[in-house]
């Protein structure tokens, strides 16, 4: 056999000649260290053969394209591609759920804010608003409608298998949020906006890495879409009931919309996440892990609350710049409590699955 894998036509391997081949082989072996150990053990030697066979004479370093291709394979293997370990498959499952849930949550949140803002603007067509230049009005409408379209578009695209579009939109939303944060916030590290940016960055990374071309398709996309519709219904119903009970009919529309946004952006979503994580923990640790991961960047708002509390500004403890108009301003507490509940659910679920795995049949 020759190096083309064909019988009867033996030929030379150019890269074999001299010490250069040894140097190149050593560098290829170092490059293969990017791969998970189990995969390297299974595939490493044949990959070395393939790489050396394809190397032109005199080459001493792996090419950038080879390195990029191998790094991409290593990343795919770590998030659930065929050939990866059970742990890698689980990581892929967690990251795909993190990305989809995050896109849905942020889509609903920004969607509600956008719709409410546009409705209120329409109902209160003031003189000032009519006097706004068309370009200002257009950019204002765009900033209210584009983020939810991006989030929900990415959610649907990833769910139905349009991965390139979904990944593009998931990365684009992080760029959009990052741009908005740098324009509006001078104290990035300890701000609510930074937490939102960190969540959107996490979603972009999770979507970009876990929805690779070799990742399994999401099972039963219809169930996700039905759940999304159900979640929207719950949020609207709770907000509606709350608005009916707490506000007189004479309340201004602006105030009403803001208060409902406060409920949606306040305790409701964290409570739903904690309950769902607890309910799914009985079956597997995947959902508690996904929700815990998604909420982790939200903890960035906790230090700020602690600092404000330490400064004696008790009335501001639960009020950050982003949630300052919330009726129930307790976001650091909600996020912290949710993360604690989800961490406990994850620990319990992992303990249960380990016990099941090591149980001796009677």
């Amino acid at each position, binding site marked *: 056999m020759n190096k083309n894998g064909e019988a009867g036509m033996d030929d030379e391997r150019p890269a074999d000649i001299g010490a250069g081949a040894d140097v190149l082989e050593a560098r290829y072996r170092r490059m293969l260290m990017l791969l998970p150990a189990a995969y390297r053990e299974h595939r490493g030697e044949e990959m070395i053969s393939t*790489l050396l066979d394809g190397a032109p004479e005199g080459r001493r370093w792996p090419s950038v394209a080879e390195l990029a291709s191998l790094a991409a394979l290593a990343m795919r293997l770590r998030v659930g591609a065929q050939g990866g370990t059970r742990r890698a498959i689980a990581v892929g499952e967690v990251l795909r759920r993190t990305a989809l849930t995050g896109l849905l949550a942020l889509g609903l949140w920004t969607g509600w804010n956008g719709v409410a803002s546009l409705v209120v603007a329409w109902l209160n067509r003031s003189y000032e608003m009519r006097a706004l230049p068309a370009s200002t009005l257009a950019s204002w409408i765009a900033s209210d409608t584009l983020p939810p379209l991006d989030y929900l578009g990415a959610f649907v695209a990833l769910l139905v298998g349009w991965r390139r579009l979904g990944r593009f939109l998931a990365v684009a939303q992080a760029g959009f949020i990052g741009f908005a944060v740098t324009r509006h916030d001078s104290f990035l590290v300890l701000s609510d906006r930074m937490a939102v940016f960190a969540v959107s960055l996490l979603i972009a990374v999770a979507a970009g890495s876990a929805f690779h071309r070799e990742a399994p398709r999401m099972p039963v996309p219809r169930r996700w879409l039905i759940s999304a519709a159900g979640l929207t219904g719950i949020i609207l119903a709770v907000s509606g009931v709350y608005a009916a009970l707490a506000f007189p009919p004479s309340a201004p529309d602006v105030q009403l919309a803001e208060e409902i946004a406060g409920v949606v952006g306040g305790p409701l979503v964290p409570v739903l996440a904690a309950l769902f994580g607890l309910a799914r923990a009985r079956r597997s640790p995947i959902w508690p892990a996904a929700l815990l991961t998604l909420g982790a960047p939200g903890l960035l708002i906790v230090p700020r609350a602690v600092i404000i509390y330490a400064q004696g500004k008790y009335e501001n403890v639960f009020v950050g710049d982003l949630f300052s108009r919330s009726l129930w301003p307790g976001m650091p507490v909600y996020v912290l409590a949710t993360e604690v509940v989800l961490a406990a659910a994850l620990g319990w679920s992992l303990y249960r699955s380990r016990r099941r795995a090591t149980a001796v049949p009677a």
Partner: protein
Amino acid sequence: MNTSTRTEQVFLILTALVDQPRHGYGIVQEVARLSNGQTQLKVGTLYGALDRLTGEGLLAPDRDEIEGGRLRRYYRLTEQGAAALAEDAERLAAHAAVATRRLRDRGVSLPGKLGPAGGAA
């Protein structure tokens, strides 16, 4: 993976293994030859595809050989893989035939094998 989501690279890998089992570099060379040098498989792409196609039962490891101190693992097309490739080839040929016929109807002159003497339509 269903038919419509198999990429051109995967199609070429399956085609490269129709006539005989090949090892990794053999597949890279054959794919380059089949595509007139337009598709140059990189090692990460190749082994990602081999893992997936082996997992789906379209390819199977054939044998291992040691040559010059190096391991060469050969892959062969399974019956299931041949059936999947035949399905893909039929679908692509049907699409190509439609495209060619419509281009001729429009009066577009087709280069190469699809030209006046070609028989794709």
